[in-house]
């Protein structure tokens, strides 16, 4: 009770329902704090955090850095371009060199699935996974679920459809775990080629018709097509994908109910979602970004509270 059951945040799969509730309760307070005139608290002033980004990121990196600074932690940033990684250094060597500068926590994004888990077994610092390849992106799922809870009051019993490139999406996998743990029903929707074969094991509904999926759901989470992870053609053209699975204002207005529209960013306007929809009052995309800072503050705070002095 009142303590996370985990030492590192590697994936949503390891979290208990109580862990997620604790993170949300703590994030509620941080959300209030980041809306104050002075948005900073001194809790982590003796904690040093390294942000290691071996893969591109804008939102997540800025969000983590802002969360850490608002907690008064010392922050060092590292990105793979222009580093010794390019000179052949191994992951453990890179990280151990950084840790020898007395770093307490590591936030890592890496293109390889399992990289955060691997690191957690070999170094002494606390690890937060900021996305490992196509595996998990736990803080994104937490902020998505937190945003649903904020908008609809509760997650339990809600119907959420995740639309798009499920196969290459760590956001989808973490979201499925998180939403199911919190009692939501989850559906995935997209072309058959972008729905992974293991999906049946996750006990989610599968739908290939966007209209049917939207008529079923309370919340639609529209994912980006991850062209950078696709080594082959999964659908004939972006235009065809957009015509079948893109969400526009006409479709949204034709539904019987007002659904909530989400997107983890970055948006490809006109592909998975039109500008009109992204900027509409049914979209909570910018709330997701704001909540991201509060949720990352909560995760960082709760993990840091376990570090011995």
């Amino acid at each position, binding site marked *: 009770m*009142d*303590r996370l059951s985990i030492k590192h945040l590697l994936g949503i799969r390891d979290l208990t329902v109580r862990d997620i509730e*604790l993170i949300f*309760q*703590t994030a*509620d*307070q941080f959300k*209030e*704090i980041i809306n*104050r*005139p*002075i948005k*900073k*608290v*001194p*809790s*982590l002033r*003796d904690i040093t955090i390294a942000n290691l980004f071996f893969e591109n990121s804008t939102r997540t990196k800025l969000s983590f850095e802002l969360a850490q600074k608002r*907690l008064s932690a010392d922050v060092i940033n590292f990105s793979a371009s222009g580093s010794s990684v390019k000179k052949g250094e191994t992951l453990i060597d890179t990280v151990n060199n950084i840790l020898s500068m007395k770093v307490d926590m590591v936030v890592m994004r890496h293109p390889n699935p399992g990289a955060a888990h691997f690191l957690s077994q070999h170094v002494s610092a606390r690890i937060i996974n900021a996305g490992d390849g196509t595996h998990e992106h736990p803080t994104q799922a937490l902020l998505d679920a937190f945003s649903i809870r904020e908008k609809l009051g509760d997650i339990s019993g809600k119907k959420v459809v995740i639309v798009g490139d499920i196969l290459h999406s760590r956001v989808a996998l973490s979201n499925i775990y998180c939403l199911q743990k919190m009692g939501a029903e989850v559906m995935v929707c997209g072309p058959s080629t972008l729905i992974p074969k293991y999906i049946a094991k996750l006990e989610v509904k599968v739908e290939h018709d966007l209209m049917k999926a939207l008529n079923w759901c309370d919340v639609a989470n529209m994912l980006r097509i991850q062209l950078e992870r696709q080594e082959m053609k999964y659908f004939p053209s972006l235009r065809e994908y957009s015509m079948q699975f893109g969400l526009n204002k006409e479709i949204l207005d034709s539904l019987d109910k007002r659904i909530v529209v989400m997107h983890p960013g970055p948006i490809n306007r006109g592909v998975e979602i039109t500008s009109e929809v992204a900027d509409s009052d049914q979209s909570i995309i910018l709330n997701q970004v704001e909540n991201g800072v509060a949720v990352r503050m909560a995760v960082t*705070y*709760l993990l*840091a*509270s*376990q*570090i*011995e*002095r």
Partner: protein
Amino acid sequence: MEKHVILNSQQFDLTIKRLCHQLIENHDQFTDSVLIGLQPRGIHVLTRIKKHLEEILDRSVKCGNLDTTFYRDDFRRREKPLIPSATNIDFIIENKRVVLIDDVLFTGRSIRSGMDALLAFGRPEQVELLTFIDRRFKRQLPIQADYVGKTVDSLTTERVTVEWQETDGRDQVILYSMDENG
């Protein structure tokens, strides 16, 4: 454990009313003054004081709840992690006269964190401290209250608890002390 009632419900009520009148002496109509209760147990004192003050003054008094969890100096020094309560201050404290309110003043560390937390909402003109119980011999920081309900001289091994009608069934203040058998 020996139990000794320091304030019964009648004395309790008198003490609250006296504190209200002392506040009015200094703050008159509360035009530029606000009351801020410290979470969690200072809120009980605040609620009671606010009720009486508003009855006496026949006008509303601005009040807020302040959580100090993230400003405490014992983060990572406690066995149990600190879990925050809600902060709710929906007004600007800039240039206001603020009365911080807590139930028991002991080491002074909660009040120190309370003052830090308060300053995140602006620069008040003045900050005062009201405490229902002052355990004066165990201060670890140079902090004193401006308004005191009852001063209690007690040992570190003793415990003072303030009980409230709303949550504990009765208004009273109790001193618990270890008996000879521990």
